[in-house]
């Protein structure tokens, strides 16, 4: 059962919204492989199935106006922040109505409106950007915080350490969240990192590092909320390792054969969605039918998103050379 802190005192509406968000993220992602195989999408496609509790828990702990910045497994992150699944699906289709106008694709989703500052395809590359966003927020005294998500592989990159050092040095309001799904493509954490308890990696910078069950949306929510409160009060950066698992391969072209069936089974049993569903039924009196209705509604939203993407136009040829520069 979920180790729920009753002190969270979350409204049932918020709990149901978390459930709904995770269902939406899951169903959105699970609709993609078929569309990809039909040739509706191109390029890379890194699906978030299994990791929903991290993005949804973190997003619910944030306020409107806070920054989120992420890597290339970010469909779920931007949707959790409130992006319309229609414009995300349209982007995966490469359509003109896509959130990045068809120029970004799966790995490069952003929303200026939602302060979702992008998905980035170079492992670890966006971590220093998070420090800069935090510096801007602190300097301008906006009260914003920055939630920066990345995978376990990023913690082995040089810029991870540069960003950790500079975040602590300038005391910026940044919450670094490592989504440790156990593998950098096909290489396990144990074979890539000398320190396998990744939350320990911030200790060299005297930045608090904590590990959380990334399959438990409430646990993620709680820890991120604490880190955000601390950052907003001028307490500086935090680092969180969320232990999670991707139910699919690294990308659409990866069958994930390097992982044993037993291992997959163990993690499947920890699926964050039925886990929260069970909690809602057992402790919050939510009827199974209500959860089924949420699923049906979110499936409908995904279907509408696909329909929107299908019906949307391709970018016009004259869009090729726009958006390179702001001036001239």
């Amino acid at each position, binding site marked *: 059962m979920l180790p729920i802190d009753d002190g969270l005192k979350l409204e049932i509406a918020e709990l149901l919204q978390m459930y709904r968000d995770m269902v939406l993220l899951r169903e959105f992602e699970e609709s993609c492989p078929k569309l990809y195989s039909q040739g509706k999408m191109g390029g890379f496609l890194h699906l978030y199935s299994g990791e929903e509790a991290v993005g949804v828990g973190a997003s619910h702990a944030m306020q409107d106006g806070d*920054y989120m*910045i992420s890597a290339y497994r970010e469909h779920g992150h931007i949707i959790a922040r409130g992006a319309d699944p229609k414009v995300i699906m349209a982007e995966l289709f490469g359509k003109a109505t*896509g*959130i*990045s*106008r*068809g*120029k*970004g694709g799966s790995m*490069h*989703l*952003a*929303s*200026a409106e939602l302060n979702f*500052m*992008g998905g*980035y*395809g*170079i492992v670890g*590359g*966006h*971590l*220093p*950007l*998070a*420090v*800069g*966003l*935090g*510096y*801007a*927020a602190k*300097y*301008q005294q906006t009260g914003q915080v920055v939630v920066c998500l990345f995978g376990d592989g990023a913690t082995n990159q*040089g*810029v991870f350490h*540069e*960003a950790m*050092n*500079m975040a602590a*040095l*300038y005391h910026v309001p940044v919450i670094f969240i490592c989504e440790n799904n156990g593998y950098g493509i096909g290489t396990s954490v144990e074979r890539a990192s000398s320190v396998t308890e990744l939350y320990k990696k911030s200790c060299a910078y005297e930045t608090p590092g904590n590990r959380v069950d990334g399959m438990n949306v409430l646990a993620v929510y709680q820890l991120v909320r604490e880190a955000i409160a601390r950052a907003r009060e001028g307490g500086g950066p935090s680092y969180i390792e969320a232990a999670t698992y991707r139910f699919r391969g690294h990308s659409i072209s990866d069958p994930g054969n390097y992982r044993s069936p037993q291992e997959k089974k163990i993690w499947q049993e920890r699926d964050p969605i039925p886990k929260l569903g069970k909690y809602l039924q057992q402790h919050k009196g939510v009827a199974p039918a209500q959860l089924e209705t949420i699923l049906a509604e979110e499936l409908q939203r995904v279907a509408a998103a696909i329909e929107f993407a299908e019906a949307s136009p391709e970018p016009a040829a004259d869009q090729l050379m*726009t*958006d*390179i*520069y*702001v*001036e*001239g």
Partner: protein
Amino acid sequence: MAEITTREAINQALHEELERDEKIILLGEDVGLYEGSFKVSKGLYAAFGEQRVIDTPIAEAGIIGMACGAAMGGLRPIAEIMTVNFAIVAMDQIVNHVAKIHYMFGGQLQVPLVIRAPGGGGNQLGAQHSHSLEGLFMHFPGIRVVCPSFPADAKGLLKTAIRSADPVLFLEHEELYGVKGDVPDGELLIPLGVADIKRAGRDVTLIALSKMVYTCLEAAEQLAAEGIDAEVLDLRGLNPLDMAAVIESVGRTRRAITVEESWLTGGWGGEIAARIMETCFDVLDAPVLRVAAADVSAPYNKQLEQLAIPHAEDVVTRVKELF
């Protein structure tokens, strides 16, 4: 009008802009308390404080990434890379992040960032500290490349770069910091992408930027003594590239030579030469020639290093081949 050094001109530009707009910050290694390893940021830390003139760790990727994020967050950062050689350490941040963010998110996000970096050879600094990388950076869409020669250009172009909504690589030359020139008093803004004729001439166009402008002016004096009237066209940057000015000049002189401090192979001279031939081949009386550095890592030995870098005499020799 006052005669000041390039160092002073850049310092003036920084000081005036920091004074004008509180969103402007300056960050880099030793830019604050130490006042810059070339003393370009003299007085700025004292005047504007550590929140705006920020000493950073030696972490070039971190510096550029942080500056990029700060720009996305509403500030107007000026990041100094101590020398352009270390920009190679930050190449992923410059190329994959700074230059691409506006385009790859469909124009939603902007990166109003200036990256200042001095470079150039000739000081016996060896293979790893003598680069001129403007040609390399010209290759990447999404980032402006500005390379001033005269002090007034340095001031006017830097102020414009700081006010630009686009990222700008502002490449200074270490050898030019102490060079003096007239700089107009008061506000000075020079648009990016406008070349400047530093010496008018009728017979051949010498196309250059940064320190090589001075090399070309020296060559032009030597050529004048031999009856050849050379025009020196200072590109003042490579992106935007003022090809209209190149074509206009070559249309009059009918001969052109590109003069660059970096390597010949894959340099910007080849790009300009190709564009001249694509657009105005018919006006040429001779093939476009290129003067550039030898395709070799900079050697330490003074004589060997000087052999590798173009000098006025090299320009003169090649000009004579055109007549």
